[in-house]
């Protein structure tokens, strides 16, 4: 039982990161129907900037929390700038082009950002200084660290903040109006370009926070880290219903849990010896014959993506709109 709870906690932490990244995908998609494949790279840049800052301050004797906060404080504006520049230079000129064009541009931007990061931060794996003391708590027999609690708490706070922004502020109203119909929104006096830019900036800011979280949680960052993370977050966004903000949160958390449980249990469940099916030679004396091992961990996200696209293209919470998704 405690192992099961532990896997759920592992999954939720992972899922919280996916959810925050997925928000960036889904916000942009919701407003201009563009899948911004460069979003994963924004997350990576967030982690890299935070690494540089934290690494420089690690020896300064500041409290660890302050160092991480300063790191995040630097990463967020940098990522916002990247997000804005991306929108202004790569996507705005293509606003009225066929939808395939900005999609390909997005892939191009992603490659450019990745390689720029490679030039700036080298191709090596960067090890974050281990400044945060390890504090662990026991919850239902499972271990949870202070960092994990912080990640979960921050994610919930950010989701709530985003929901407030979208549903309770003038900017949010303008965003929703633009999402529904940009032409009419413009007629109503909404500065559509400004709203779209704001969406990119907010998404990139969230991405930066996710990058800092991933960096400090796992302790490593590399210029390639954005691509797989981005793809999984994209799968999470689709799972929840792309374009749907609560959907991205649910999709991310769910995907994280599916991955953790999958990796944790698939080996035992596909151990043929359990069912008396395995070859006698390997099953003898409590041996095992495992069909699918934990190396399939990364596969779950994409299996989920395919299943959703086949059976429920609009996702769990998405409304059924024919030409989206």
């Amino acid at each position: 039982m405690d192992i099961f709870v532990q896997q759920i906690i592992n999954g939720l932490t992972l899922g919280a990161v996916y959810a925050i990244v997925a928000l960036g995908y889904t916000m942009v998609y919701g407003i201009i129907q563009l899948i911004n494949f460069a979003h994963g790279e924004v997350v990576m840049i967030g982690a890299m900037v935070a690494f540089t800052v934290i690494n420089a301050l690690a020896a300064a004797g500041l409290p660890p929390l302050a160092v991480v906060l300063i790191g995040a404080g630097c990463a967020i504006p940098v990522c916002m700038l990247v997000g804005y520049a991306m929108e202004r230079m790569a996507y705005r000129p293509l606003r009225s082009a066929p939808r395939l064009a900005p999609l390909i541009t997005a892939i191009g931007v992603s490659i450019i950002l990745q390689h720029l990061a490679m030039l700036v931060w080298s191709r090596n794996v960067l090890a974050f200084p281990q400044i945060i003391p390890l504090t662990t708590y026991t919850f239902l027999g499972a271990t949870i660290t202070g960092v994990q609690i912080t990640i979960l708490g921050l994610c919930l706070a950010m989701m709530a903040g985003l929901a407030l922004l979208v549903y309770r502020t003038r900017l949010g109203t303008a965003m929703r109006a633009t999402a529904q119909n940009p032409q009419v929104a413009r007629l109503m006096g909404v500065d559509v370009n400004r709203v779209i830019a704001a969406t990119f900036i907010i998404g990139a800011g969230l991405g930066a926070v996710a990058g800092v979280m991933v960096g400090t949680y796992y302790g490593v960052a590399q210029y390639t880290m954005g691509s797989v993370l981005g793809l999984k977050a994209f799968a999470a966004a689709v799972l929840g219903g792309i374009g749907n903000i609560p959907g991205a949160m649910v999709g991310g958390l769910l995907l994280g849990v599916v991955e953790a449980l999958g990796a944790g249990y698939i080996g035992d469940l596909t151990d043929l010896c359990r069912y008396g099916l395995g070859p006698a030679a390997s099953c003898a004396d409590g041996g095992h014959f495992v069909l699918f091992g934990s190396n399939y961990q990364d596969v779950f996200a994409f299996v989920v993506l395919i299943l959703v696209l086949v059976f429920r293209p609009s996702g769990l919470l998405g409304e059924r709109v024919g030409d989206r998704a």
Partner: protein
Amino acid sequence: MKNSKLALTLLAAAIGLMGCGEEKKPAPKAEAPKEAAPPPSIEIKIGHVGPLTGGIAHLGKDNENGARLAIEEANAAKIKIDGKEAKFTLVAEDDQADPKVGTTVAQKLVDAKVAGIVGHLNSGTTIPASAIYNQAGLPVITGSATNPKLTEQGFKVVFRTVGRDDQQGPAIASYLADTKKPKLVAVIDDATAYGEGIANEVEKTLKAANIKVLPREKGTDKTTDWKAILTKVKGKKADAVFYGGMDATGGPLLKQGRELGLKAVFSFGDGACTDDMTKLAGAAADGLLCSQAGLPPQAADKKFLDAYKKKFNVEPILYAPFTYDGANLLIEAMKKANSADPVKYLPELAKSNYKGATGQISFDDKGDRKDAEMTIFTMKDGKLAPIAIIKSGKTTDYAEFMKMAAPVAAPAPAAEPAKEAAKQ
């Protein structure tokens, strides 16, 4: 009129080009007369391949430095081959630790007509590349690829100055079994040729010692989240973990294991047997066990260590002494055969009996180094400290080994040559 204009343009362009050319290379010009004066020289290219970019670029650079040092020393020694002064040049290539890039780069070296190759670093890149070298008949010596498959392919051109996983795996596994006496061990690998290879050997040895082993868990060479796997390991109450993989993934694995409150002993192969583990895993790294094929760099020949430090201003990290020896073996064989033609010097290479920075080197029929040593390390206060040497199945305490090796000389680096002297 037209013609004269064209001619003028061409002339201008030519002058421009000449100008550029002259400006660019004042240095070689100054050297040129010096080279021209002595008897004719031949240029001998030696290739080196390792990842110079990516997660283990630091190890690739370390390997390359070893080979570079050997070549510069050979140049300084003004070796004569076939009556001509040999001028060795190192053609250093980057395989990004990627098997696909590895074969491309191998072909590139073959096309560049190198006389021999030192490398690659990873087993995963060396094995496919070795087929290309074999086809071209080019000798290749790796100083770090430890997967047994490499020399089991029957290629006559493949050699290694380092031990094999099927020696290294049993070494760390038997040390683990003897000293920690675990009842249940979880074996994890990163699904690469190297990781799987060493994990298989560890599992075999543990099982032979009647220790139960959990079904294999696998990540990839990019996995950062090991929590699901480690939670499972914790649930099964394993009291030791072995991970076959590199430090970039091994560090997070170790850190997350401690976060989960896993009390098990963590052990690693040479890929994660680096000082970087402390940076990657923090305090959690203390107490880990790991093995390296061969002797620790600090136990290499003192002359090599001094030269390396002087030249590159850093300490050798891992396999630099082995690539240094690899390059020297090539040069030595060329000297003996009095030729840089692979066909001629290959038999000499196979017969090598050479005293290198890592001790006496000779090869068996497969091209593996005879009697390779294995070293077991532990992490103490953020530094890897050797604790035992395993040679032909016998475990010797490191301090004792050093004492045996160097009865007079106290400092560690001096031990190796002294030991060799004692043996002869």
